[in-house]
């Protein structure tokens, strides 16, 4: 087996805690409580769990938006410590994030071109012409018409906005993309378009995905490996087929049983 692209050991993130200045304890929340994972290049790790299970906090630690309280992250075999200078630049060139809310993740006062050129300016050495060319190619790859470059985010539907978000994440040609509920804000018909695009891009560029979702059917359709989270912990981890067909943990079974299926009545399954 190849070396994992990203590897995390015993990640913990605590919010709150500590004491007030008169010594009273503040409430403490262990949002992520000892999670370890490893993702092989070119595969997709699906992370499922219900609201508050810590999956979004985990995503933000893996892309460097928040620092872990405990634990280590290794990217391409190198440990990721305090991000600064050239190391920070290389990290962001390798790992990018696609957000849940496609509209909120775009600055309403910038055009699509400005949004897509942003990471290129800050993270690459491309000149103006090079950036223009890269933006045009990106927009073509994610299925946005060239004339959209001068439009503002509010002129787009949710699905189109998410294509812009995906293009921005792809701009610096990262190897790993963390997708935090990328289709949960979209209608089903548009959701299928975006899922199709993600599969296509993965095949085309050999991307590695970390796909976070509360929707088990979506994860099953996309992931090679699956991790199930409950209250900050990973209760079950393994290859997709094994987890979905022979779940070991009670919680995984409960989750699977709770999903309503079109054309089937609940009672028939029980």
């Amino acid at each position: 087996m190849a070396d994992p692209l990203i590897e995390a050991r015993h990640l913990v993130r605590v919010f709150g805690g500590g004491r007030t200045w008169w010594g009273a304890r503040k409430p403490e929340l262990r949002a992520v409580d000892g999670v370890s994972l490893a993702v092989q290049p070119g595969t997709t790790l699906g992370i499922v769990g219900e609201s508050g299970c810590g999956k979004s906090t985990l995503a933000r630690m893996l892309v460097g938006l928040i620092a872990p309280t405990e634990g280590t992250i290794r990217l391409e075999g190198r440990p990721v410590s305090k991000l600064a200078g050239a190391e920070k630049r290389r990290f962001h060139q390798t790992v990018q994030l696609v957000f849940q809310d496609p509209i909120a993740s775009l600055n309403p006062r910038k055009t699509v071109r400005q949004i897509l050129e942003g990471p290129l300016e800050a993270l690459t050495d491309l000149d103006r012409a090079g950036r223009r060319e890269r933006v045009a190619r990106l927009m073509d790859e994610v299925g946005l018409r060239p004339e959209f470059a001068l439009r503002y985010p509010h002129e787009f539907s949710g699905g189109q906005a998410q294509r812009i978000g995906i293009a921005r994440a792809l701009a610096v040609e990262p190897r790993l993309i963390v997708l935090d509920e990328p289709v949960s804000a979209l209608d089903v018909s548009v959701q299928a378009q975006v899922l199709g695009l993600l599969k296509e891009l993965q095949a085309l560029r050999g991307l590695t995905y970390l796909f976070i979702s509360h929707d088990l059917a979506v994860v099953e359709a996309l992931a090679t490996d699956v991790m199930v989270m409950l209250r900050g912990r990973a209760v079950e981890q393994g290859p997709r087929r094994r987890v979905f067909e022979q779940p070991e943990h009670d919680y995984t079974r409960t989750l699977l049983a709770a999903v309503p299926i079109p054309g089937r009545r609940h009672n028939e399954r029980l």
Partner: protein
Amino acid sequence: MAASSLPRRTSAWARLSRNGLAVVGLAIVVAIVGIALLAPVLPLADPDITAPANRLLPPFSHGAWLGTDQLGRDMLSRLVWGARVSIAVGVAATLVAAFVGSTIGLVAAYFGRLADNVLMRGVDMLMAFPYLLLALAIVAALGPGLLNALLAIAVVNIPFFARSVRGATLGLVQREFIEAARLSGYSNARIILSELLPNVLPVIVITMSTTVGWMILETAGLSFLGLGAQPPQADLGSMLGDGRNLVITAPHVSIVPGVLILVLVIGINLLGDGLRDVLDPRLKSGALSRPVARTAVAEGRTSGTGDKGALLEVRNLRTEFHIGQRVLKAVGGIDFVLQPGESLGIVGESGSGKSVTALSILGLVPTPPGIVAGGEIRFAGRDLLRLPMRDLQDIRGNRIAYIFQDPLTTLNPLMRVGHQVTETLIRHQGLGGSAARRQAEELLDAVGIPQPRTKFDAFPHELSGGQRQRVVIAMALANRPDLIIADEPTTALDVTTQARVLALLNDLRRQSGAALVFITHDLGVVSELCERVLVMYAGKVVESGPVGEVFAAPRHPYTRALLACVPVLGEPERALDAIPGLPPPVDDLPEGCAFAPRCPLAMAECRRGEILLARTGEGRRSRCIRWMELGDG
């Protein structure tokens, strides 16, 4: 109501110029500021030349339109020069306060923690003083004088800018585009200047436009007290102060500058209100108009006949939203009949009109901008659209009950949940307080809330999402309704909670024999709960029939495509066929079939005339002329 999420861009200027009052304000401000600016070149008498012989001339005197003051100086000239000083000081104070306050607000909100604590505690300290008193203390320290007054007024206004900019920035800092900017490798300074500042600029402008009027008033006030402009320099406030002692013998000396301040500030406030309406995104979308108690209904008559045994009969219902010049046809002619005890699912994507259909039944579509443009809704033989208000209120929550989507926002946050249940019992069954409480506790128990007697006194925020939705269900079932309308009741809940709430709803409904209209985008949920289903697209029913049959063998290309693009648990290998394109905007529907532009089977006839719902089998209908080609299965 995602239908309204496609705003037309009109320039801020065009929107401002449509606001009559704002234009009046602008005219006043431009006129006064223009004259004040032109003071040096206007043919005015010297404002400081005294002429004791001509003292206190009344207005309209020869050579002095507005009269003269106690030293015989020309009032008109003094007014123009005084206005010049007042405006300059007010504007300068506003700019100083805006710059300092906005910087504090931005920095405090972006960096948070220590910076936020230190800066905002300082601002709180300033706010702990009564507004004018702090200005007085500063003037007392620095000594009277116009510049000191300016400084004092600027300082006391800093908190308003700091607080509103901080508030706006806090809302933005949590937005994902700021995280995206960090991942794009931006520096903090770049994020503040290029990501945050452009987005809070409207807030700064709004705060400036609302405070500049006060600042002119307050500097005038300090001058009035003799603490601002010192003679011979005069602003409007000091002129008023000078005239105060002569108010009985020569009222014009104080009335003239007073009226000018009043008119100027009215102009500024009118303009400021107009600017705020243009710049505030919440006001822009017309969101601040409150819905009235019942949806407006266009003129129309009841046909008077209908299906005798039906519980609910909807005939050609059309509900529209009138926003400016646009007419969004959210529901474009819907028919369905519901028998007592039956369960009907309405499915569709956002903007398909499914929620609007549900809300139309009891007149809960917000007006403005909603209006029922036509049709009939007959409940137990009575046309709900044309029922007197009081009769409709007797049906609401009694014979027909609603369960809405988000249990957190649908419960009143300041009322104990038990009282929200008893309220409907008292209203419709006329129960007394203790009887209502007993019955509410039984209801809470029936919906599976542990310790119902204690939870009766809980506030909504003290319950979990699932428990809140159980309270909402208890409220809906309280008066044993004949019909329950549930609008995406489990969309905000996790799957495991959803499963439990759906099971509960199903059991209780069956026990009570109530009919159910269940609105959802989730095809799986419909299958679990409903006997029949309506599939909606762009405001119309495209297919209807028994749930099992419709999903097993759809007879409309949209239904088929919808089923094909949803990932289904246990079928990971099945290819997902996305539907190309987007649903059409409901204010610009194509002729013929609304789905034709995205339909693989579409042909020329599909784009012409009205396509009707055709009977395709026992209890099944489809709005497609090629349904026979879809085959079975």
